[in-house]
């Protein structure tokens, strides 16, 4: 979560609020924030740290794990209309990649602004496709405009 706190200004620049959720109580969030987060990141976490003690929110989003009684490591990007645009769930031992979440957000915002499609490995400034690569008019022609090196 410290990595998210570090990148919080980048999310704000993209007009995005961050909300984090675990089954811990608000008191535990406070302790963690004081003892650890605020020591790792200047100012600590400046976004709401939500308490989901009975896993109700995790249930709503399908990420509550009954066996462990915990919310799974996952993220959802929700657009300004309240519509879910990204769903990602990770195995508990694996940490997420905050830079990738920012990339997904930039790609989604770029798509909503331009209607363009962002191919594999897209980053701002890299080529886009004007139609989906599975639409009839571009089917079989993606190779003309997009090269695998663009993915890396």
């Amino acid at each position, binding site marked *: 979560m410290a990595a998210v706190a570090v990148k919080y200004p980048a999310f704000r620049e993209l007009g995005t609020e961050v909300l984090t959720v675990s089954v811990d109580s608000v008191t535990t969030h406070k302790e963690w924030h004081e003892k650890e987060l605020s020591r790792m990141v200047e100012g600590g976490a400046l976004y709401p740290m939500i308490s989901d003690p009975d896993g109700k*929110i995790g249930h709503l989003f399908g990420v509550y794990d009954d066996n462990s009684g915990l919310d799974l490591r*996952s993220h959802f990007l929700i657009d300004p209309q309240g519509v879910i645009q990204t769903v990602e769930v990770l195995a508990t031992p694996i940490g997420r990649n905050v830079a990738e979440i920012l990339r997904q*957000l930039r790609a989604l915002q770029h798509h909503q602004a331009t209607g363009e499609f962002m191919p594999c490995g897209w980053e701002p400034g890299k080529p886009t496709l004007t139609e989906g690569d599975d639409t009839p008019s571009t089917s079989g022609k993606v190779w003309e405009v997009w090269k695998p090196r663009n993915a890396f």
Partner: protein
Amino acid sequence: MGIQIGDKAPDFKAEAYYRGTTQGMQLSHYQGQWVLLLFYPADFTFV
């Protein structure tokens, strides 16, 4: 999984630790801006 791309995010109310205080919050209050909703197993663990 119940939630799919294109679904309206289910609304919820909850309590949150926010900048030193305990505050009530509601997801739908954030409509009009993008939201990163991020779940994690437990405090005192890595991202």
